[in-house]
């Protein structure tokens, strides 16, 4: 069925960032928004992606924002970097989703929801770190890999799930020794992200604490944000809600803060 080799081959297929994107990310890292915008403008696909992104309702802009330098200015350094990562991930998105009932728009909405709310959380926690802000982009990337892995054996996956109350993430782990969060770690390495980013994402699994107070705290917030987002009607319908096992006890101590930051009513 799904083997470790197959999983590795999918991760290998993840394209390294094209030169233009690498340059854009490098300049964003240096905080040079103007030059980064100039280079990004040359990539028409990125251009189109960023314009579409800014028109998502979650960003709440009344007027059309079309100029890349304007977009980068609005998003700020960390937000722009995150948007470029999201773009890179969207390049991996399948043309037709089989296991999860998603499409390109729904996937972009998922990315946008996670990004905007993660930014709110980091602001609440007084964390101003571009890499940590970008960490949230890895989760959608792993969803794409999982979709690719499972879609080939969709009937077997359904049969397995009908026989036992087992989440897809556990199936993934049992079959190829890597779960969603391990895949996140692999991708972060491939994209040469900071080491602590992988740790935060692993802590977000809710079952793999990293023995680092700050990283585990961020992991908790990310775990709860993941479930808040995966409880959105379109994502429940897409079958993503029961992808991973929600660890309620893990997040109970931050739930009230989370509710007020995100505005759960």
């Amino acid at each position, binding site marked *: 069925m799904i083997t470790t080799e197959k999983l590795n081959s999918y991760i290998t297929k993840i394209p390294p960032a094209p030169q233009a994107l690498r340059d854009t990310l490098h300049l964003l890292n240096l905080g040079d928004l103007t030059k980064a915008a100039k280079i990004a403008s040359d990539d028409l696909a990125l251009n189109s992606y960023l314009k579409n992104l800014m028109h998502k309702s979650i960003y709440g802009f009344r007027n059309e924002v079309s100029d890349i330098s304007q977009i980068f200015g609005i998003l700020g350094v960390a937000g722009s970097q995150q948007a470029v990562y999201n773009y890179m991930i969207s390049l991996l998105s399948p043309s037709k989703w089989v296991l999860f009932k998603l499409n390109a728009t729904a996937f972009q909405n998922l990315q946008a929801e996670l990004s905007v709310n993660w930014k709110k959380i980091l602001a609440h926690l007084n964390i101003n770190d571009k890499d940590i802000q970008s960490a949230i982009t890895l989760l959608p990337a792993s969803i794409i890999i999982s979709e690719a892995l499972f879609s080939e054996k969709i009937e077997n996956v359904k049969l397995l799930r009908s026989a036992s109350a087992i989440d897809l993430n556990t199936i993934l782990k049992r079959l190829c020794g890597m779960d969603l969060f391990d895949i996140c770690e692999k991708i972060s390495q491939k994209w040469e992200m900071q080491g602590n980013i992988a740790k935060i994402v692993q802590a977000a699994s809710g079952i793999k604490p990293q023995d680092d107070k700050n990283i585990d705290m961020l992991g908790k917030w990310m775990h709860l944000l993941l*479930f808040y987002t995966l*409880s*959105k009607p379109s994502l429940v*319908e897409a079958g993503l*809600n029961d992808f991973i*096992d929600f660890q*309620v006890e893990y997040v109970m101590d931050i739930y009230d803060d989370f509710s007020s930051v995100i505005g759960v009513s």
Partner: protein
Amino acid sequence: MRAMVKDGIAIFAPQGFLDGNNGNFFLSIEDIEATTKLKVDMVLVSLKKVVFFNRNGLETFVKMLLKVRAANHATVGFCDIDHKKFEAISRFYENDLNFSLFKTQEIASLFAASFKNQSKNVLVYSEDKSQRAAMAIELHDNGHNPIVAQSEAEYHEKAKAQNAYDIIIDNTYLGVMGQKVATRVTGNAIIYTVSSFLDAEIGNTFNIAYHNNSLNVGFRLFIFDAYKVVSMNVHALNFFSKLASSGAEYNAAICFVGLTFEKTPIAFKETLEDAGMLFFDHMDDILQNKELLHELGASSAAAVKNKRALNKAIVTELPNFIDATVATIEMMTNATANKETAKVCTIEIIDKEDKIASSIGFYGDIDGMVVLVFPLSIAKKACALLIGENTDDKEQVLDTLAELVNIVGGKIKTLLADEKISVNITLPRTYTDVDGLLEVVHDKKGVQLDLKFDDDKFLFFLTR
């Protein structure tokens, strides 16, 4: 989402946030259809991994559960609920909690018919007396040994001895029971609680149908707990005056307890007294005065002009009424029932000695009253199960009978709901002797069924 089935229990396990927006997406029509076809004793929704929910979010699951119950009579409800979730659901469905709540899946399994691991020592506690009784009966019926804590203090005390019990049950509610509209106390008084400002809104909030049916069942003493009332205006005055006047038709006594007249004109008190309303400073002035309690709450012939006849709708449902009654009494007494004669007549009780009675009303799509006349021996058997020992305290026996009849009423409600007939039930009324009962029902025509439990005869009477 599909339910996972294990040991005859199907469990749905949604996770994350459950609200009105996403609730519908957890269950498709196919999921609901598939669940109704399951051969299971119990269908539950686990809230273990739900961190937030509101009533709208639960609604999809509640509708599914009720549909499943109507289709295959399975016990349905929610499980894995802590105290906070228990309180929230109880609040959301205050008057409409017709599904069960179980603290854990393990507790739920004790109430499942196919649960094999029996003979558990189970400590049971619920604030609601009827619930305590219902749980004890169900547990006993399933082969367990329930120990019922009668008060919160007793519960905490008993719970300290952890090794004494295999399982401790709290934060649990059996949904087959009737809804709680008012509180019943020994002596057949019904207590309604009113608070803050009493104005025209009382006409909307007071359940007049429930009150009228309680009168019809034979309740004669109604107490308004008004300790928390700030003031009353003329609209509320008119309402209570009319209530008192209509109660007079049944010789009912209606009392106000704890009402102060600092912000309410004292003239209102005089008006209400003229209408027959009684006023007391403290609840104990009535409840601790057995003589007064008996005098106010005693049965008396009702001078009701409009006698109601049995109709086809109610007779059609007769098997449901009998099934609910027989099943409950069989559970309580561990005896098998034999149906003897059934006839349409006014109630006929040949041997009135050593018999006590209880009645419960139902109203809604159909309305009427079930009367049960028990030999004292059966009543005592029932008490032994609920209290854990034989008792000769007649008051305690009557209280237990009230619980038994309440359970019968709850079962009737559930069986009728399965046929899409919606009814509510009144509180049970008890009678220390047959004469008291006859004062209320002697001229009512109904269906009388004589039943035999081992050597004990028992009478079922369905009337309007």
